[in-house]
């Protein structure tokens, strides 16, 4: 989201500096940003940082408590929990981001279309939205994930199917309110085409709000990925995943609680990082 910030309409140099200062004076954005950078850093650098291969088993050193050798101990198959944790961050976050790209683009675009043109375009898009939103999210996720075989494919398919709705709803409302404003009308009188107005003028204005929603939505998606993993229909072993780590560690909750607690906290941590960033961005744009 850093890059989105910089892509906003051009500002003179000194104003950009003040943007930077505003960022610094938004504590939730700073906190969320730092948490995210840390997390992404760990995930990206996992191959460098991790002391072991994530699926390397040692059947004679299983369920070891945290030590200098294994920072977070080992799991039931003697795999290094720390290595698995950061590799899981890698796989979970990668899926989370990849699975959001298409829904985000289609959702924002359809929302703008519906909001800008109104009338039958709006009616059709809203009808589709209402239809999809009628299906409980987890119901669709579970059905599609199961039917398309456990693994990442199900998550992608599900999200392409239903993920765009949230964005469409938000941008539709915003676009509809912008449409009534004068500057859009004046752009129309200048003879600019609808698509041009949407992309050049509407998009920069709805994007901030959409990005804020994206942050919250990503939390929901991550939780869904983890839940699928926990249910045994998510990311397939041996690829590490926080959900399966929680499920695997659950048997040892009283004897080796860190096994399921640590990946659980990782999910909560990511959730906090993303929602803080989202709150912060919302704050920032509200103040502008």
């Amino acid at each position, binding site marked *: 989201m850093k890059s989105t910030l910089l892509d906003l309409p051009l500002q003179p140099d000194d104003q950009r500096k003040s943007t930077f200062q505003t960022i610094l004076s938004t504590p939730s954005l700073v906190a969320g940003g730092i948490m995210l950078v840390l997390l992404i850093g760990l995930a990206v650098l996992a191959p460098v940082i991790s002391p072991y291969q994530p699926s390397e088993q040692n*059947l004679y050193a299983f369920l070891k408590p945290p030590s200098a050798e294994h920072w977070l101990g080992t799991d*039931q*198959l003697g795999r290094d929990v720390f290595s698995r944790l950061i590799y899981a961050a890698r796989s979970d976050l990668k899926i989370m981001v990849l699975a959001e790209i298409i829904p985000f683009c289609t959702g924002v675009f359809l929302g703008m279309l519906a909001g800008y043109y109104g009338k039958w375009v709006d009616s059709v898009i809203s009808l589709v939205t209402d239809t999809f939103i009628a299906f409980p999210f987890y119901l669709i996720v579970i059905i599609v994930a199961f039917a398309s075989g456990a693994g990442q494919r199900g998550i992608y398919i599900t999200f392409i199917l239903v993920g765009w709705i949230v964005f469409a709803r938000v941008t539709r409302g915003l676009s509809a309110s912008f449409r009534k404003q004068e500057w859009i009308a004046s752009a129309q009188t200048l003879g600019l085409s609808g698509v041009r107005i949407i992309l050049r003028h509407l998009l920069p204005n709805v994007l901030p709000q959409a990005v804020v929603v994206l942050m919250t939505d990503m939390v929901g998606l991550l939780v869904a990925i983890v839940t699928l993993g926990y249910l045994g*229909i998510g990311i397939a072993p041996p690829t590490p995943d926080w959900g399966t780590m929680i499920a*695997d560690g659950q048997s040892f*909750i009283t004897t080796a609680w860190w096994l399921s607690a640590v990946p659980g906290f990782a999910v909560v941590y990511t959730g906090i990082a993303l929602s803080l960033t989202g709150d912060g961005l919302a704050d920032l744009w509200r103040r502008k």
Partner: protein
Amino acid sequence: MSTLFSSLRKSFLVGPLALVLLVIVAGCSGSNTGSSPNSAASPSQSADGGKPATGGTFTYGRPAAVNSFDLHNQITSNNAFAIDKVFEPLVAFDNKGEIVDWLSKSHNISKDGLTYTFVLRDGLKFSNGTEVTAQDAVFSIERHLKVGGPLAIAAQVVSVKAQDAKTLVITLKEPYTPFISELSNFSNGIIPNNFGGVSEEEFLKKPIGTGPFVVEKWDPAGDVTFTKNTNYWQEGKPYIDKLVYKLIEDDSQAINQLKAGEVDAIESLALQNANELKAGTATAVLTNGSWVTEQLFFNTLDQHFSDVHVRRALALAIDRNGLTQALTFGFAKPANSLLPPAIPYNTNDTIKALNYDVNEAKAELAKSKFPSGFSTKLLIASGNSARAQEAQIIQNAAKSIGINIEIETVELATFRERFFKYDFAAMLNSGQADSPEANSILAFQTDPNGFSKSYWTHYTNEEVTKLLYEGQKTPDGESRGEIYAKLQQILADEVPYIPLYFPDILVGARSSVNGLVVLPNGSLRFEDVQLKK
């Protein structure tokens, strides 16, 4: 606590699969060597010599409901472990797997192995107070012969006669050594002659037997409540007034309920949860050596696994000791032979098994049709986290020699349907004996003509089949041992399945429970149970 899908658990080890053991005829009483059950944690009589504590209700959490008391038509543990509380056989096995007289005061097998004579105990009564006579036993065994059922009497019975009110004589056409063991099974329990005068249907709804408990309330999709049989032949027993079988489908649910004291014991205790219960002050774990062998099964019709070198290579690639350690927390022994140590004629210590050696495994694979490896699937049932871990170990081992395994997890019911249709390449499952008899497992896992088709591996080897039939006719003794040693060695060399480990029977119980007896088939005896107040 395993994953969410609620169905699979120990019943799988104990029941449905092990299920069907073909019972055949002949024999003398068993020379039960080698069975070495660990003693249960606390099944001792009340030690203080005073009067035993009596009364109370014992609640037993079980993963599947009792849906029938028809002893001749049932095999799965959900029913078996309820049937054996109501009906009892002439001879029974104890917690060490030894055959002992039960309803019979004594029994005798003729030298030629063709005539079996049983003398009933004195004063033996059914729960409704009626005297038990030899005629009741004749009726019971004849009904079993007529019905057949999943545990049909495989011996060729010529006649079943009541010599007098207390003496029963069974004559066979040819010797069948496993017979006496198989008579100890729950399916050979004694029921009243002519169902005590009521219709068969009515009788099975309100069954009457000699067992320590009587069915009081029974929901075929839920719980069963038993009350104690006041006419029980073991004087003063059972000590408890009521026994409740409570249906708890989910593993983690069961453990939580045990910890919360909502149940007194649970049947389905996953290996990885045992230590947790053992460590708790309010809970204890009762164990016993089992008749179960955890195995990796191959579909020998599969394009890859029909190649014996592929199977051997995989066997060599798996570190069974490590696997056992990591998965079973000291509640199991690594397996070398197919027969568990608690079963006579097992060769676990002497057999030459394919032991862990990656280089040799690679060399073995090089001899196969797929020297550079291949991709395949491993089928497992959901809801059993030990199996899920096991699958990952095997996946990792296979990868080390170039075989890529995708783990396919399906629900228990689907899992069974799938392998019954040979719809699998490899699967994780277990085999189990129903009586302390080598034939029990071997017939089920090696007979290509039996209904189980060598445990759905479709493994066919004429020599193995020949040895199997020979073993059934040979009286107990050294020569029978030699036959089974030879048979087990062939299986170890051709690996239609890789025996992985022999898990102990695990029962979780409250520490306040005394006198619980764990049998090697996973059933419990409750007649000595006392609840500390």
